């Protein structure tokens, strides 16, 4: 590493006097995202989890009399979405966790374009991951379908909407992770918060109402108890509930007692879950010291 020979930093190719435009910043964030091993590890893990879990689930129910392999498509999604979630959290916290923010924000001192660049880069990579993961899920149901001599028809019966909803919910989950990461800045609290919000909270709420409900009362068909309706509404408005609606086949009713948001409503709810923490992160970035 003897560098004493090279001295003056005279640029033989004088750098173009470019500026940190949004296009440049997006390119820089894409370079950063695609230069980490973890990014590719997450892509592979997400695709494998999606394919394998869907395959196992479809195979397990392939003996049922009314087996429809297409109904198993979304069975791997709950765990597969952890991948994009972690990807987003890592992008959101990567700058602050490592000190890289010094280099980043002295190059882009207006700061907020960095957040926009991270959002675009994460969305693009999550889209690629999501398409591959959904592809793996489709492949996952084929053996079980073949065992019953069923050829799944992906082009009809609302399946295209389900597949698109799966892709959208995976991309949305990645951006949710990014937003929480960018807001909280430290990887561990951000990851815990994201996992609690996405995975633990909906299950915990439903379990809590089931425990609190009187098991002898309210037989099926009766009016939904108020407490259950409230909890179901809350669960529907959580990211996981919105993702569930996005991936439900068209025509399926919403959760009991909760307002039926529809596909567009669910997309809006998920978008709000991304935009609100992202806006808070932008405000924090813009108004607070870094260091």
């Amino acid at each position: 590493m003897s560098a004493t020979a090279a001295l003056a930093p005279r640029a033989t190719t004088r750098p173009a006097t470019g500026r940190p435009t949004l296009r440049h910043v997006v390119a820089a964030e894409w370079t950063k995202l695609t230069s980490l091993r973890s990014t590719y590890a997450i892509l592979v893990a997400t695709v494998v989890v999606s394919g394998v879990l869907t395959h196992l689930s479809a195979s397990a129910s392939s003996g049922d009399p009314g087996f429809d392999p297409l109904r198993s498509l979304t069975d791997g999604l709950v765990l597969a979405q952890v991948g994009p979630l972690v990807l987003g959290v890592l992008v959101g916290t990567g700058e602050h966790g490592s000190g890289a923010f010094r280099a980043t924000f002295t190059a882009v001192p207006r700061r907020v374009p960095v957040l926009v660049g991270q959002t675009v880069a994460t969305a693009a990579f999550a889209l690629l991951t999501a398409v591959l993961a959904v592809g793996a899920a489709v492949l996952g149901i084929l053996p079980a379908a073949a065992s019953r001599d069923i050829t799944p028809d992906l082009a009809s019966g609302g399946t295209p909407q389900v597949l698109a909803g799966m892709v959208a919910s995976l991309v949305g989950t990645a951006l949710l992770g990014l937003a929480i990461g960018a807001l909280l800045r430290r990887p561990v609290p951000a990851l815990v918060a994201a996992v609690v919000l996405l995975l633990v909270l909906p299950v915990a709420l439903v379990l809590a109402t089931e425990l609190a409900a009187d098991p002898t009362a309210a037989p099926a068909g009766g009016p939904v108890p108020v407490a259950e309706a409230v909890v179901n509404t809350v669960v529907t408005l959580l990211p996981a509930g919105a993702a569930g609606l996005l991936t439900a086949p068209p025509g399926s009713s919403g959760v009991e007692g909760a307002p039926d948001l529809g596909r567009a409503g669910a997309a809006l709810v998920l978008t709000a879950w991304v935009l609100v923490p992202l806006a808070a992160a932008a405000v924090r970035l813009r108004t607070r010291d870094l260091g």
Partner: protein
Amino acid sequence: MIEVEALTKRYGSTTAVDGLTFTARPGTVTGFLGPNGAGKSTTMRMIVGLERPTSGTATVDGRRFADLRAPLHAVGVMLDARSVHPGRTAFRHLLAQARTHGIPRSRVDEVIALTGLERVAGRRAGTYSLGMGQRLGIAGALLGDPATLVLDEPVNGLDPDGVLWVRRLVRDLAAEGRTVFLSSHLMHELALCADRVVIIGAGRLLADAPVQEIVDRSARAGTVRVRTTDPDALARALLAAGADVTPQGPGVLHVRGASVDEVGAAAGRCGATVLELAAEGGSLEDAYLELTADAVRYRGRSAGAAASLAREGSAR
């Protein structure tokens, strides 16, 4: 050009930087000195826009950092060698930085060659030694071929070869008409490469002057040290001639107000045998320790003892 005017930063009730005013000019290496906690890093972070001043201004070429049109081309910044994601290679780190300004890949290769990182540029930065991290930080600062450089402790962790390289690099950068502003704990290092030094203590400006002027201000500058077999007789003779004499140990006197020749002549007259006789030069270190003696925020057992130890050390 960096202009800092009445710059103040408070965190709650703590004042980290207190009404600081100085200028770092083009064609000059300006050294930035101060004890730990004096506010050096805070000042640098305010100059490059990572922190906001409570009051006052810090501008580069007349603009606040955040208002610079193309920051990488205006100011090269290295605040900390650990400003890289440990999982990213040096090349990709620099490439990402370059892309923010549309700087071509060829320039990335250039700064890698310039900083001697060719062989390790494909390794993840987390595996780097402190010295390699410093070189990477300097590479990032040079990326945009900027007119101003802000370097926090650039020689920290470098091997002697690297120290020499940085010293020549900053001299060359200034010779090309650039503004170089660098902090260091190594006074000796600053004395060799800085034209001017800004010294702060407890957030306040203590001195802002050419290196030589500050050295000459040191209490030891212009004194004569003499070791003799008969210090009492020599002291009497020198006092009679109007000089100030301070005993400094067995047989050793520090004389102020008389030249080496005059001290030698006085010794001859009174018959004291001279064992050692030398003019004492001041050093930047002495001047610094005297200036900051009252402003050291994190004191060891005795700052005074440390100062006199350092003085004895450099006199030896």
